[in-house]
Structure formats: structure tokens, C-alpha cells
């Protein structure tokens, strides 16, 4: 089984040289720690920076330099700053090649719910709806089941949606699955996980075609 860092590490293998990438809050942020050698990517944060660098040292901390999670960050050589309309222009205009975000639920049609739980304090969708509505290449990073052990990979989402028919790949603590043609297609197993464990943890339609390899994490 993968921990949060393992999920991030596996997602980082999806990065390609020259990609501009938007990472959401939580596990997705960790993807930046595992960019494979020989690959150059630039990270966008939707509050207005391309070329986001690591967290600052104590003396580099600047209130005017934060990421979308409101954490202090640094800017790498070649970085740029811009306003929020231009930032979402990059996103809706599909200039950002990969988006990684978390989810509470996913459906076998690629619907995603990640912003609202009825009866709980609603904080808002932030930029998530804009991101999922436009990006071509959305990868979801999430735990396969919730704290009660119930599957988060469903036939239909029960929570209010963030976007419809938009997610094509999900990396969970148990494996990698593509979403297409109204089903989850199992592609890789996390180390130590069996196909049966995935079957038991997936409530939506699951397709297991042939031998499923265990993923390789360098």
C-alpha cells in the first residue's frame, strides 16, 4: 500500500519534459518533491505564479509570495507573476498540461466531488471547478476508501459535484486506474496489494484486463 508520499511519487512519473503543471492542496503538493531526473517542468499556482519553487528559508519568507494554499513559497529563476484572470486564462485556455488534485469521491464516468459536504461548513470551491472544467489531463490523488472503509470510487458521486466527465486517471493508496467508457480500468497495483483487494475497495464498475503489474517506484 502507498502512503501519501508514495501516491505523489507515482503521479510524478506521469510528468513529461516541458509540462506546465498545477498542483492542488494536500497530496498533490508533494508531487513537486519527486520530479524525475532529466525532466524539466514548471509549477503554476493559480493565485498568480509560474515557476514556483520550494518553501523559503526563514530569511526568504515574504508575505507577498504565497501559493494557492496560502503557504509561503519561493520563485525560481524564470518565474513570472500575473493576475487572477490571466492565471485562469492559462487554465481554461489549456496552456497548463497537467492538473493534480484531491477528491472526496470519483465516479466511473469521471465525475469528481471535492468541495462540499452537505450539513458541514462549506468553505468553497476555490479554483477547483475552473481547473476540472478545462484541463485535458487531470490526475486525482486520493485514498481509495474513506475513514469508514467505504469506497470513494463510485458508480455515481453522492456529494455535490465539482465537475462532470473530466477525470481520466486516479492514483490511490491501492493502485492506478484509468477512467474511460464508464468504468475504472485497473492499470497497476500498489506494492503488496492484490487485485481482489482493489475489487473489494471499488464500488464503481471495475475492469481488470489481463495481468496487472505492480507499480515500480524508483
Amino acid at each position, binding site marked *: 500500500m502507498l502512503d501519501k508520499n508514495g501516491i505523489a511519487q507515482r503521479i510524478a512519473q506521469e510528468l513529461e519534459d516541458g509540462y506546465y503543471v498545477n498542483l492542488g492542496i494536500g497530496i498533490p503538493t508533494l508531487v513537486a518533491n519527486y520530479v524525475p531526473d532529466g525532466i524539466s517542468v514548471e509549477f503554476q499556482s493559480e493565485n498568480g505564479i509560474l515557476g514556483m519553487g520550494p518553501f523559503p528559508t526563514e530569511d526568504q519568507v515574504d*508575505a507577498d509570495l504565497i501559493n494557492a494554499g496560502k503557504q509561503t513559497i519561493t520563485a525560481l529563476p524564470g518565474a513570472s507573476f500575473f493576475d487572477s484572470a490571466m492565471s485562469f486564462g492559462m487554465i481554461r485556455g489549456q496552456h497548463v498540461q497537467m492538473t493534480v488534485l484531491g477528491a472526496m469521491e470519483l465516479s466511473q464516468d469521471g465525475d469528481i466531488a471535492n468541495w462540499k459536504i452537505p450539513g458541514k461548513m462549506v468553505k468553497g470551491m476555490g*479554483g477547483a471547478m475552473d481547473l476540472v472544467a478545462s484541463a485535458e489531463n487531470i490526475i486525482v490523488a486520493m485514498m481509495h476508501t474513506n475513514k469508514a472503509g467505504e469506497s470513494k470510487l463510485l458508480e455515481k458521486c453522492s456529494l455535490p459535484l465539482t465537475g462532470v466527465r473530466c477525470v481520466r486517471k486516479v492514483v490511490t493508496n491501492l493502485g492506478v486506474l484509468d477512467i474511460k467508457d464508464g468504468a475504472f480500468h485497473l492499470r497497476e497495483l500498489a506494492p503488496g496489494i492484490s487485485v481482489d483487494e482493489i475489487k473489494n475497495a471499488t464500488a464503481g464498475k471495475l475492469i481488470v484486463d489481463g495481468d496487472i503489474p505492480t507499480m515500480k517506484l524508483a
Partner: protein
Amino acid sequence: MIRKVVKNAEEAVQGLKDNMTLMLGGFGLSGIPENSILAIRSNGAKNLTCISNNAGVDDFGLGLLLQTRQIKKMISSYVGENDLFEKLMLSGELEVDLIPQGTLAERCRAAGAGIPAFFTPAGYGTEVAEGKEVRYFNDKPHILEHAFEADFAFVKAWKGDEAGNLIFKGTARNFNPLMAMAGKITVAEVEELVPAGELDPNFIHTPGIFVQRIFQGVNYEKRIEKRTVRS
């Protein structure tokens, strides 16, 4: 040169009245118009509708205007770093309209650019789309969104000149340039106000045409919400 410089925030908020709609720049606590928020509090105008990406924290930013119950409605993309906000929302004292962040930005930009409405894919198929016109372009569904209207826009820049030209710093730029374009009266507060001619016109982010009042702010706290450092 058109006179835009006012003495301070108190002078800058003159004309602010009950029931007005305000835009306030900033993302989280970064790039918020700190001085103007304090002056709005002193002005005491009530039943305000505030368009701002976030709603501050309990004792800073827009949280200060929640304390005084001056805000009737918030239009934001992400709120709730703020206990008082939650309490007022649950008790029905505060209306909240949550909008996707990119749509929020574009509704500001459109307001300033003379675009009354536009179609966006964001929110299609979600509760955000309820009651909105849907049209397909290139086989993809989009929803109709309208430009905002705002009586005042309050923005914060790093540097500004007497002609109202603004330069922002880092990610404190965020919504500020868009809101500057959109306000019927745009008030810009700056960390450093210089005479016209000192800022290189090649590096102006917001041209002075969008700014009606400008002043040099004081005592910037520039609070950091999530100070995160490398270990």
C-alpha cells in the same frame, strides 16, 4: 495631470454608504487593502456586499468588518479560515455566494472591460450552473456568467504614482488589477507613492485611468496566514 492623490484612507472612503457593493483585492491575506478596510470600519457603512476571493481571518482583513456586522453578503470563492464567518453564516446573519475562482476573476475583468456577460465551462453540471443558460461551443457545454457591478473597488499595490499608475509585487497582485478596472470608484493604497515620472511606463501593471483615488498606506502588517519554511 488629473488629481488623484488623497491624504489618507479616511479621505479615500468618502461617499461610502449603506447597501453599497464593494470589491476588495487580495488572495488570503496577501495583497489586501489593509488601510481601506480600517477606514471602512470607521466609516460604519452597513449592509455591504463584499466581493473578495476570501473573507479574512477573525481579527484581520475582512474579518474586521464581520466583527462590526457591516457585511450583509460575501461573494467569494473560498471562505472559512474564520470562526466568526461560520457563526454568522450558520445563524443567517451573513449571506454567502460561492463562485469558482476563475469565474470570480473574469466577472471582475469583464466588469472593467465592458463585457456584460461571458460563457465559461467552469461549474457546468454542478450546483453553480443551476438556473444559468447553457450553450455548447466546440461540442463542450458552457454556462453564462455576468459581469459584476461595484460602487467601490479597494485595491492594494506595492508602488503607485500621482497619476494612479500601479505596480504590484509577487503574488500580492492576484485580484487587484481586475478589481481596479471594475470599480465605479477605485481606491488604490500603495506602500510607496511617488511623483509622476518616477515609475517606468514600461513596467506599469495597472494604468492610472482605472484609479480614481490613491494614497500612501501606513503601518502595513502584511500578516502571513501559513508561514511555511524549508526544514
